[in-house]
Structures are given as C-alpha cells and as structure tokens.
C-alpha cells in the first residue's frame, strides 16, 4: 500500500482531485523545473489552499491597518501582540473551526480551542482568557440543538481542563447557519515583552524537534480539499477527518513550551496545526530565510505503515515544532521528560532555502521554501454588487406594516429570542473564574474585564459580528462589527487597543460571496483606522456553505481594550431615582434589525448607517463619564434597540428595581424609538446626585443626548406611553428562553 501510494502517477485527474487548477499545476512545474511527485503535489495542494495560503483573500487583507505604536507584533506570526504597559504585552488571535464542528461538533469545537491556545502559547504567552463566538441555526430544530449542545460542551471541556477561563463571546441563532454553524475561538495570552518568541527557523545547523503527541492519520483531509477516495481507497479503515483533542496533553504541552521558552533553549517554536508538519516547517523556514531538512521516519507515529504523504499532511493535535540551540539538547530533553512528553529530533535547519523531506535518508520531497510560502497564487478580481442586495433593500416593509406591530408583544418576543436571551446555559458550562483575574465575567457587562496581575490596569475583551447586517450591507456590516466591539469595550471604561478578525464567508469563487468579502474587509479597514484599532492577527474561513446555500457573511471581530486604572470601571450600583441617560440620537433605523427578523421573520432593508466620527466621540464621552464615577452602568444599544437595552440594564440592577423609559415626544409610531438599531448609542445609569454635572458635561460635548428615563423602586419596566411590564416577568422570559429549549429531555444523548 505504502509503495503504491508513493508511486501514484500525477495525472490531470489526480491534480484536480487535489483541488489545484491546471494553470496552478503548470506554475508548480515551472517553480520546480520538473513535474512534482505525488507527495510533493499533496504538499502544494495544502500550502496553496485558501486555508494555508489565503489565495483569494490575501490581496484584500493587506488593506487592513496593522500598524500603530501599541503594536508589538502584527500579522504573519502565530498571533498578534499589543503593548499594555508595565512591560507587558497581550498576545491574541481568533480562529474558526466551522467545518469540523459541523461534522463532529464536540471534537470540532474542542480542537478549535486547542489550536488557538497553541497559537498563543507558542509565542511565549501564558493563555489568560478564551472567548467564543458561536452561530447556529434555529434552536427549534433538534439537529441544531444537538450541534449547539455538543459545541458548547466541546469548548467547555477543553478550556476547563487546560485551566484557561472562558470569559466571554457571543451566541447567535439564525437560519442561515443551520447547515454550517460557526465556531470562532479567540485566545488571549500575557507575557513580558522580552519573552516574546517568534516562529522562526533561524541558524543553519540548529536541530529541529517534534515535541508532544505522536502523529496519526487523523485530520489528513483537514486543511485542503482532497477527494477522500484518493486517500482511503487503499486504507484498511477510514478515519474521521476531524482531529481528536486531548486537553490533558495540551496542558502538558503548554507548561513544557513556556518552560522551554523561558529556559532560552529554543530559537523558534510553531504549532503543528492546519497542514501539520508541512506548514509549520516551511513557514518557519520562510520566516528565517533558511531551509529545513526533516526525516519523516524519525517522527513518532501513532500507527504503523504511514507514508511520508500521511506524516506530512497529518493534523494530529497537541504537537509543536521546535528549533533549538545546538548546545541545549540536554535542557530541552529534561523539560520534555519533566512533563512526560515525547521529544524527538527530526531534522535540521539548512542554509540553502530548500524544504527537503527524507524518509530514512532517502529524499522524498525537495521544494524551494519560497515556492510553498511566497509563491502562493493570489486571486483578486473586481465584481459588481450582486443583485440580491437591491432586492433585500426593496423588501423593507412600509410604515403601516411596522406600525401594525404590537410593541409590548414585540418586546416579549425579542427578549425571549435565543439570540438576545440570557446565555447563562452556555457560560455556566465554561470555567470563567480559574486564574482568579476575572473582574467582570460572562453576563456581567458588555465586555469581559480582566485584572493584569501586578499592575493597576485591566484589559477588556469582546467579540462581535452581525451576519444579517453584513448580508444586507457588506461594507457597513464589516464596519459595524468593529464599532460594536469598540462600544462594548468602552462600556467597561476601556479604550480600544487592537483587534483580531475572523472572516467567515461562503465560496469566494462565487461573485456574490466575493463581493461580500471584499466590501466587508473595506468596512473593517475603515472602522479600524477611525478607531485607531489595528488588526494584528486573524483568520479567513471560506466555503461556509451547505446545500441550503451560503451563510450570512459574518466577519467576527475580537477586540482588546485597556483600562489603565482598574478602579475607573462602572460600579454597577443603582438606586431608585437614578437617571437613565441616552448618549446618541433617538432611534429610527429598523432596517436589517432584530424587530424585522425576530418578529416578522424578515431579512430586509439596509443595515444602520455608520458614522465613525460619532462612534469615536461618543465612546470617548462614555469612557470619561465612567472614569469620573458619573455613570454607574453603561450598556450599548444594539440588537432590539432601546427597549431591549433598557430591559437588559434593568435585569442587571439589584432585585426590586425597575426602569421607566420616556419616549421622545411627537412620534406617531414608537417603533423607531424603541427598536431602532442606529449606531453610536449608549444607555447609562447616572446616580441622582451626578445628574446636574452629567447634563452640563454632555451639553458641552455637542453630542446628541437626552434623559431617557429613571430607575424606579416599583419593579416594573415602563416603555413610555406604550405601557409597562413586571420586570420579573420579562426577566424570566429572557433568562429561561435557552434553558427551556435545551432541557428537552428527548435530545439528551
């Protein structure tokens, strides 16, 4: 079998089965100066895949701002890093694991968490937080509940075991994700600047090691689009393409890697993630402008009979490629032994910039490093706006149809919609208090807030994205993901520092999807520039399509903000008689919003307009009010508008308190004011004694604002002339919406 596979002739059919186009194959022949053998073809198909090589996206990603005085490490490494003062840097990245989670939700989600953890600790940073941005179809569908239940469990089991708190994220339910859920995991790590380790294969002659788990046949189809028949027709048994996670080994690998980096024995470290040994070794060599020679016969195997092809392409989890200093082998081995991890010398850094693979000393691949990493084809094309956009915009219901919606019933529908409802069922399954630095964990505020040990400061973390907005208005949708994250970070008093982006789209070979992607990236770039929040790391996930069609285009933004003095955070205290203040204009924009989607079942209209200058100014105003103790609660107005924001603020107040909203005078229909999702808006609770000062301060800024109501002692939530409801009644709807659906015993398996 082994010989047969190695000697498989490279025919046009085999090339096509590897997902390579004829012109791409011709380019490979040109770069090599000969025909590739079967193994080399497999290597090219991986490295030139969108997943590893970003061939459709890279041209546009370069438009994203990635520089700034706060940036310690921009894109191109395992993760990005920003300065947070006190000699510390925060290392972070978000990555998708969508397709594996669709096929095998538990392992798919778990290994997604594992992969992003490794990206962060290979940089020498100890992971201090995880956030998970999840999207599923309609929860009334039993298969969706199955995916949701197992993804959440997979995320939890992995992070909980490794001991990294999951402090935030988001969960959205929408039909467009029914066949293709999104599982985006963000990891945040902390290090001292001088400990930053880069994934470079520097120093010809330096030995190369594989540290961690042995290599099996799992995940061989993972990153590329190999036809399964090519690999399995001779296999004794078929293996699932989804990798299997082992969080215990990950924990050992984490500790060993950090100890190794601290010891100075390593020159460079890289996770063997997507495309395993192939991508890690070639990318490390590319960064070091060196070559690398690896003998696959030395790589520890989990099973006999593996071909070089399989060893090179395996995506077995919990493995690291380490380039060590030549005189440090004893130190390296002592650390590996302490943590009971296999560590095997598999190769050497070479001066010739060739990627050379041996099997027992016989050469099986020889490819210039640049051909694999730098010569990846790049496709950029101009496409017109797809026709569906005009149709969606035209579908916007008229004023009469909107006015016919019963506002109080709509409020109940919105609060019990799983996308808006309380996510306690999710985050109680995540350990969010381990490491004892979680000041504000999940469900406590718009962003998580973490102490930075040994300093006065704290970092704020949030993830955001809105597929419906991006579907209706790709450019606005991209920008809105960024500004929403900035609002959330600002609501805990922190200033945006930088972002990581996870771009989930359909098939980029289709013009409509490509348009969505290009426009969304432009929107992200504009917003990040305006808010001075460069993109330091990220990930592109294309081909998110099921037989039902493409997902809503969903750029997800993970933001890190800095609060220099942790005491300048909102205190969350409130009492009857405190004022409720709206910073920003009155609402009016219902297009692409939750009122239409949740109440009318409509995806229609344009997304809210984006005023980046107002976003920047209003965020600054809110931060300064929080800093000076003038706002005790701050919440951004997003999904479901003022009505939902007011209810959510109220649910966070001590029991017994209520909120009475005043609606702006003179409106015929209250729907815009209650449910409008216009941007740059915040709802604040201002202590009664501070109201005069806040009025003066806000008047001086020139920004639109009004007192939108007050905190009451009557335990009711009032929506102006529209009416009121018992707070407890609304809170129960909101708290139990997901739990009730998930406690369906027939599902439990």
């Amino acid at each position, binding site marked *: 079998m082994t010989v047969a596979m190695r000697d498989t002739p490279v025919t046009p059919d085999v090339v096509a089965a590897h997902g390579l186009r004829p012109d791409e194959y011709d380019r490979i022949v040109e770069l090599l100066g000969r025909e590739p053998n079967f193994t080399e073809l497999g290597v090219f198909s991986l490295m030139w895949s969108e997943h590893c090589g970003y061939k459709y996206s890279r041209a546009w990603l370069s438009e994203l701002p990635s520089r700034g005085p706060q940036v310690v490490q921009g894109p191109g490494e395992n993760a990005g890093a920003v300065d947070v003062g006190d000699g510390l840097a925060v290392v972070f990245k978000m990555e998708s694991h969508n397709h594996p989670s669709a096929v095998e939700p538990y392992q798919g989600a778990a290994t997604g968490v594992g992969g992003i953890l490794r990206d962060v600790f290979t940089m020498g940073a100890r992971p201090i937080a995880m956030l998970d941005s999840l999207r599923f179809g309609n929860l009334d569908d039993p298969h969706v509940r199955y995916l949701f239940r197992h993804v959440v469990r997979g995320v939890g089991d992995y992070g909980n075991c490794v001991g990294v708190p999951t402090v935030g994220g988001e969960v959205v339910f929408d039909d467009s994700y029914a066949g293709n859920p999104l599982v985006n995991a963000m990891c945040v790590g902390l290090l001292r600047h001088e400990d930053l380790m880069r994934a470079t294969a520097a120093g010809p002659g330096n030995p190369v090691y594989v540290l961690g788990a042995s290599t099996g046949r799992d995940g061989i189809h993972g990153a590329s689009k190999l036809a399964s028949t090519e690999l399995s027709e001779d296999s004794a048994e078929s293996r699932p393409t989804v990798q299997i996670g082992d*969080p215990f080994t990950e924990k050992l690998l984490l500790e060993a890697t950090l100890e190794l980096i601290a010891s100075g024995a390593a020159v460079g470290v890289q996770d063997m993630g997507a495309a395993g040994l192939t991508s890690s070794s070639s990318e490390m060599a590319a960064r070091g402008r060196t070559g690398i020679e690896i003998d696959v016969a030395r790589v520890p195997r989990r099973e006999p009979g593996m071909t070089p092809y399989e060893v090179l392409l395996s995506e077995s989890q919990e493995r690291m490629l380490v380039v060590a200093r030549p005189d440090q082998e004893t130190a390296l081995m002592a650390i590996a032994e302490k943590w009971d991890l296999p560590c095997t010398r598999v190769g050497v850094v070479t001066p010739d910039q060739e990627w050379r693979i041996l099997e027992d000393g016989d050469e099986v691949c020889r490819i210039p490093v640049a051909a694999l990493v730098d010569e990846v084809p790049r496709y950029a094309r101009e496409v017109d706006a797809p026709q569906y956009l005009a149709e969606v915009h035209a579908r916007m219901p008229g004023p009469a149809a909107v006015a016919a919606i019963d506002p109080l019933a709509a409020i109940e529908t919105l609060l019990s919609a799983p996308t808006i409802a309380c996510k306690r069922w999710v985050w*109680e399954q995540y*350990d969010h208090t381990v490491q004892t630095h979680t000041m504000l964990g999940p469900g406590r505020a718009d962003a998580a807030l973490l102490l930075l040990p040994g300093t006065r400061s704290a970092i704020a973390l949030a993830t955001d994205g809105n597929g419906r907005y991006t579907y209706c208005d790709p450019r606005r949708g991209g920008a809105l993901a960024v500004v929403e994250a900035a609002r959330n970070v600002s609501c805990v008093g922190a200033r945006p520092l930088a972002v990581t982006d996870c771009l989930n789209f359909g098939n980029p070979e289709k013009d409509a999807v490509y348009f969505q992607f290009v426009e969304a990236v432009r929107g992200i770039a504009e917003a990040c520039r305006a808010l001075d929040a460069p993109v330091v790391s990220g990930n592109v996930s294309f081909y998110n399509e099921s037989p039902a069609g493409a997902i809503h285009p969903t750029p997800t933004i993970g933001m890190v903000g800095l609060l220099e003095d942790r005491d300048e955070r909102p205190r969350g205290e409130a009492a009857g008689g405190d004022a409720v203040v709206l910073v920003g204009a009155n609402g009016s924009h219902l297009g692409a919003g939750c009122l239409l989607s949740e109440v009318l079942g409509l995806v229609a209209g344009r997304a809210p307009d984006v005023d980046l200058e107002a976003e920047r100014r209003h965020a600054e105003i809110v931060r300064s009010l929080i800093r000076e103790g003038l706002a005790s609660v701050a919440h951004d107005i997003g999904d479901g508008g003022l009505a939902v924001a007011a209810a959510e603020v109220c649910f966070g107040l001590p029991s017994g308190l209520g909120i009475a909203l005043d609606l702006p005078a003179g409106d015929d229909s209250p729907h815009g004011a209650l449910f409008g999702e216009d941007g740059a808006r915040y709802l604040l609770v201002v202590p009664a004694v501070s109201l005069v000062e806040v009025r003066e301060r806000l008047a001086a800024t020139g920004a639109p604002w009004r007192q939108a109501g007050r905190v009451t002692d009557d335990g009711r939530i009032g929506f102006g002339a529209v009416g009121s409801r018992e707070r407890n009644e609304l809170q129960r709807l909101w708290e139990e919406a997901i739990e009730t659906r998930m406690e369906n015993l027939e599902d439990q398996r």
Partner: protein
Amino acid sequence: MSPVPIGVVRFPGTNCDQDVFDAVAATAGAQPVWLWHKETGLRGVRGIVLAGGFSYGDYLRAGAIARFSPIMERVIAFAKSGGPVLGICNGFQILAEAGLLPGALMRNDRLTFVCRDQPLRVDSVRSPFTASFRPGEIVRFPIAHGEGNYVADDETLDRLETAGRVVFRYVDEDGRVTAAANPNGSARSIAGIASENGMVLGLMPHPDRAMSLLVGSEDGRGVFRGLMEAAA
C-alpha cells in the same frame, strides 16, 4: 516567627496550582512551597493543599489515578499523622479516592460542568479550617466542576452530620438549603466535609478564587488562615 511552609501539590494536570500558591502567599504567616507529583518527600511542609484541576487528565474518574502517585503516598501518611490537608475541587476528589475522606464525587446530576458564584453556609466551625467563621455564616466561593455530586450511604451521612463534619453546604441567596440551590445533586447539599479529627478538609467550591473583592469575594481568606493556624 518564621513563616509556616505550606505545600502546594502539582500534578501535571493541576490547573489551580498558581491560584492556590497565590492564596497561600496572601495569607499572613504562611509560605507556599511547590510539591511536584513525582517527589517522594514533603520538603518539611507543615500543611498541604491539593489544588483543583484534572490531575492526570481524569479521563477515567476524577482523582482515580492521582491517588497512586509518589507524592500521594507521602500526603496520605502526613494526613494520618494528624497534619492539616486541604483538598479543593479535584483535590477533594483525590482525597475521597485516597480514602482520607468518606464518600465519592460523581458526575453532576445535570450532567454538565457548572461554573457560578455559589453561596455556602458554614455548618461546622469545629474544623480548624473554619475556626474563623461564625456558625451558620453565609459565604460566597466560586464553583467550577463537572463531578461534584457528593454521594455516601445514609449511615455515613448521618455520622458526618452528628459529628459536625459537614462543613459547607450549598444554599440559596437567603441561606436556605433548597434543591434549586444545589448545583450538582450532592446528598444533603453537602459542599465540603472534614475528617474525624477535623484536620483534613475537602470541598468542591474554590476558596482560592475568593481572595479579593476585585474578583467578587474575599470569603476564602478564612479557610487559608485556618490552614495556616492548624499548621503552625
């Protein structure tokens, strides 16, 4: 007076080791000392903490393998000679597996991992670990576990109750024992129990995560103060 050395045991999968180390360091008069699981001596410590985590991965049963490790042989002997041992979360599971405490910790009745801030009632101040609390005092420690459902036969439970060995119980915000306030199905809402001499305490909630109001509670300080005083 020189500080009292308190050992913090690190199994390879312990993940609350640093939290416990910091909690001991924050306790006046105590000094934390690392104890690696492969060690066969106790480095002269006068008290020991088994921290939370997943000791050896715990794919079989929480704590089932840890009890056979070299360090545990020494810990068991130390406890049997009357030394104070505190087991938190996975540490409690290991103490039960090792037979230092009666009963066992099973999967949570709701079958899912649960992490939340949990009100607890101090039901016994007989153990040195709770000597600084008032009987019936309500404290808040975070919980975070998948296997915290305490089970024992009725006779054992009765014996624990009458001997004042039920130290912590899960309660609601008003201090009442209710089914809804019991996060994992534990028999009689038991969150923590002590050995006969009171010197071994096992509990599922995390006093190590309740050491500062910045993270929501400093009620855990009393437990570490009690450990330090028992070890002094």
